[in-house]
């Protein structure tokens, strides 16, 4: 089923307490090579039929109004899974 994927990340200037906690856990498991972790969200919006430009526009609007809070988060990409279209 065609899928539109929305990626949301905490804004760079906002401290990400969850990412920080994950980052602190990595070395405990022997993963030493990572300087930091930030944790975001990925939404998969499935579509009956084809992904039209209108549906993509709707997905972009949903991403900005419901799926993210612009005070603390950025929508970093709205894309069709498996396609090269990017938002």
């Amino acid at each position, binding site marked *: 089923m065609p899928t539109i994927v929305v990626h949301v990340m905490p804004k760079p200037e*906002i401290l990400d*307490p*969850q990412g920080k906690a994950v980052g602190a856990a990595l070395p405990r498991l022997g993963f030493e090579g990572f300087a930091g972790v930030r944790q975001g969200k990925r939404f998969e919006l499935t579509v009956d039929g084809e992904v039209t430009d209108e549906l993509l526009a709707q997905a972009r609007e949903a991403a900005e109004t*419901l799926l993210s*809070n612009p*005070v*603390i988060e950025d929508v970093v990409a709205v894309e069709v899974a498996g396609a090269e279209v990017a938002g």
Partner: protein
Amino acid sequence: MARIGVVTFPGTLDDRDAARAVRLAGGEAVNLFHADADLQGVDGVVLPGGFSYGDYLRAGAISRFSPIMEKVVDAAKGGMPVLGICNGFQVLTEVHLLPGSMIKNEHLHFICRDQVLRVENVDTAWSADYEAGQEITIPLKNQDGQYVADEHTLDALEAEGRVAFRYVGWNPNGSRRDIAGITNERGNVVGLMPHPEHAVEPGFGPDSKEIGRRGTDGLGFFTSAIAGLVATT
């Protein structure tokens, strides 16, 4: 008698306590339901604490789109007193009645403790019964309580006296500038993370230095709004 509506969302926890606080303060509490686009003619609204919609997506993010919130927003813009406590505060930021947002506590832990606040603004609908600078103790319990906003917004809040309540002694969650609660420009909409409705009745409130569980410092929120409504009607 002033009629104060208390909204119940799926996952709300503190609606009963908020309604009891309204009654103890001398008002009539009216139960409002998230799915009803009807304020039942109330004079003020409390959005209580809890985990509406399980905090799914972001705290308050889904409640914001409930039918009752459309009415609450309209009423708030018309000057009706609206108080958001904890999750209710998160709903007020998501629906843009108040600026900023809440993210996870800096230390990631859920906290539950008696918290000292300083009342910074006594010109709001929900704080008029306090004295400027008064320190009050009410419970605080949350996981997503770290208030954040950009520097420009924070500077504007400070300049306009819209930081209504500030944490004293200890910042429990990393909130910017120790902010515990804020108000809108008009002073009718107030949101805060700590819970005044849990400190309204001797025997069930926070401990004081002298005696346990006697604290009723939260009652002033509700008496303030009710007195204001009585004065204007």
